[in-house]
């Protein structure tokens, strides 16, 4: 163990009431200016787009104008005549066109093409990349590409997508991610049917959310530059440098050692720049032309095509006792992954593990579905996989409090999990603090808690 770790305080010496042992702590409790503030306010902070590279080409993507369609043919002849046009890249040029971001940790299948081949499954899906001498020439050339589509039926709702006869979005023949052979992530703890039978009251609600666009001030983009020795330097604003580097290597069929990814300041990420989406095609462009290639999203592409926080739907059925104890909780949740997996299989797993919330409930049943629809592929955003679950759970808790005519804080304090409790997905609770946080918050807003609530502790029930 290195010296620095040895000097850290053991956890039990830090007391929750904020009266921290001052030994060795110099930053907590002080106001420290941000390290990057001065470069931000002087305009000196470097972002990916701030380099000048002689001979740089600009990439503009030709995109699907249908939600779901077969591609019957593409005519590049008018585009090629555009002054400034240099070349087009299609799926035939991509060494290994299909990938999924999380293949790096064993998630399968590689469902997403860098460039579409015979079909498109979301509005805006990339079909062909135009390279030109200026961004204007690239955009004009791209607008002159003629794609012949055969439109197909599309599905936009998670439950519709799981019904027999629904349009199939994936190439596997079904619209959900398979978790070790199962159609969803499942959590089973105790016996909810018995729990419901013993409950005083059953409360059932449905909760829905919409996709949320991160809308960073800086749009997604990168510049890929050949170093002249077979290596490429890629300046990118990705939040996921190694996801992007490793996937680019796999897509291009080159050793990862030939790629040098330079990240740094991201002009707003919020989880929206964790996709591997601009670097592989830009690097391929640099490889095919031996020139630097810039690919940056327009504001319209950022808002309409880039990944969003997934829309989610929750059905929560609770069995509750008149005194406020929740004795059974059954949750069916659907994550709308959009047309491709990206991070959604992982996010759905997180969502399942997050149920039933920070409460000790003896009987829990969860089915968490990762569903494919013809919407823009969704991805991560602030509190990936869990934030929307909290919206649903806490809204449900308020409904329960209202139905039982119990103070909403009392309801939560009664059910809050304590250290040592077993969670539904079979992990023991450690370091719980929900009780103390509620007590502190109540104090700060001058809301008096009843004596039995004020005396509660996360250390014991």
């Amino acid at each position, binding site marked *: 163990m290195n010296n620095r770790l040895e000097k850290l305080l053991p956890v039990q010496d830090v007391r929750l009431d904020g009266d921290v042992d001052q030994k060795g702590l110099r930053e907590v409790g002080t106001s420290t200016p941000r390290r990057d503030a001065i470069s931000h306010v002087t305009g000196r902070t470097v972002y990916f787009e701030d380099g000048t590279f002689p001979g740089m080409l600009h990439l503009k993507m030709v995109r699907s104008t249908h939600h779901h369609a077969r591609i019957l043919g593409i005519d590049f002849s008018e585009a090629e005549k555009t002054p400034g046009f240099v070349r087009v890249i299609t799926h035939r040029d991509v060494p290994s066109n299909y990938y999924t971001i999380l293949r790096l940790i064993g998630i399968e299948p590689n469902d997403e093409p860098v460039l579409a081949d015979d079909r498109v499954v979301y509005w805006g899906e990339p079909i062909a990349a135009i390279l030109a*001498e*200026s961004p204007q020439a690239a*955009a004009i050339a791209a607008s002159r590409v003629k794609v012949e589509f055969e439109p197909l039926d599309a599905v936009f709702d998670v439950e519709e997508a799981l019904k027999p006869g629904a349009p199939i979005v994936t190439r596997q023949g079904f619209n959900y991610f398979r978790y070790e052979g199962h159609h969803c992530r499942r959590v089973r703890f105790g016996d909810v049917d018995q729990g419901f039978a013993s409950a005083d009251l059953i409360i059932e609600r449905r909760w829905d959310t919409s996709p949320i666009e991160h809308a960073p001030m800086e749009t997604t983009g990168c510049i890929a530059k050949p170093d002249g020795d077979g290596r490429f330097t890629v300046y990118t604003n990705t939040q996921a440098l190694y996801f992007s580097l490793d996937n680019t290597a796999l897509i291009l069929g080159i050793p990862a050692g030939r790629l040098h990814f330079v990240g740094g300041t991201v002009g707003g990420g919020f989880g929206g720049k964790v996709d591997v989406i601009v670097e592989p095609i830009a690097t391929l462009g640099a490889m095919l032309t031996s020139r630097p290639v810039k690919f940056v999203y327009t504001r319209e592409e950022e808002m309409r095509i880039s990944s969003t926080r997934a829309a989610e739907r929750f059905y929560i059925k609770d069995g509750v006792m008149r005194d406020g104890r929740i004795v059974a909780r059954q949750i069916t949740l659907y994550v709308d992954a959009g047309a491709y997996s990206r991070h959604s299989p992982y996010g759905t797993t997180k969502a399942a593990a997050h149920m039933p919330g920070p409460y000790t409930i003896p009987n829990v049943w969860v089915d968490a579905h990762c569903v494919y629809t013809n919407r823009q592929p969704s991805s991560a955003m602030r509190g990936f996989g869990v934030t929307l679950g909290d919206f649903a759970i806490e809204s449900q808790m308020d409904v329960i409090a209202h139905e039982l005519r119990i103070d909403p804080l009392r309801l939560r304090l009664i059910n809050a999990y304590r250290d040592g409790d077993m969670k539904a997905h079979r992990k023991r609770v450690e370091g719980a603090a929900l009780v103390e946080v509620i007590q502190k918050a109540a104090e700060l807003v001058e809301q008096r808690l009843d004596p039995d609530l004020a005396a509660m502790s996360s250390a014991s029930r």
Partner: protein
Amino acid sequence: MSFPDLVIPETVDQAVEALSVPDRKALIFGGGTLVQPFITLGIDAHDVVIDLDHLALNQVVLENDQVSCGAMVRLAQLAQALPQDYIQAAVASISGPAVRNLATVGGNLFAKPPYGDLATLLLALDAEVELASSKETRRLSLNDFYLLRDNAEGSSMKGVLVTHIRFSIDPARKVVFRKMARRQLNSGAIVTVALSLQLDRGIVRKARLALGGVDHHPIRALSAERILTGSNLDSEAIASAAQAARQDCNPQTDAYASAWYRERMVPVQIRRALNSLASYE
């Protein structure tokens, strides 16, 4: 190669001549706030851009409550020149301060919904536009101008330039402007209401009710105007006029609001505009 050619006429005649060249796709460049993005982003490529900045159309002339406004007058400049509440409110509702330093009065007439809020006010003020073409110079009401554009679908409008906008700021009229938007500032319209009433001892002699955001350009709510004219602005007249306006609208769905929502907000916003006037009495 990536940009259109730039033509900078020095007189209105030269501008009109440049616009009339056949088989050439020309883009009129006023303030640039609506058209520069198309040039920068390589969208809808034009052959040539006609720059209006050298035509001396940038004066606001005020004479006896009549305003003559050159088409190139900037929105910020208009707000500096005219202190009326409704002018201030309409200009302030459009985008942000930097854009208002560039955007023009003439350009706003062509701003597609959910924009065009000054044009909505001008419609309620019975504004007139002066049009220059190679044949003639003529004036028509802004309302007729929009109808002409609807019917012509742009073809007979080729070679025509809006040079001036004229409107009255007669203090005897009661004018209200209100814009419903997702945010208080720098946001497109859900519904914009511009109302101008001439009252004589509590009876409405003349009513102009213009709506923005509820069709392909600002419109006059003629059904509502008919109900208001001759009324005493009691709550029944107000409610009736507000509801009647729905049939005058043809709202569209966009990122800000659905057509469904816009249609239902029309009577609400009209009622509020009328009530705010009634409370002055």
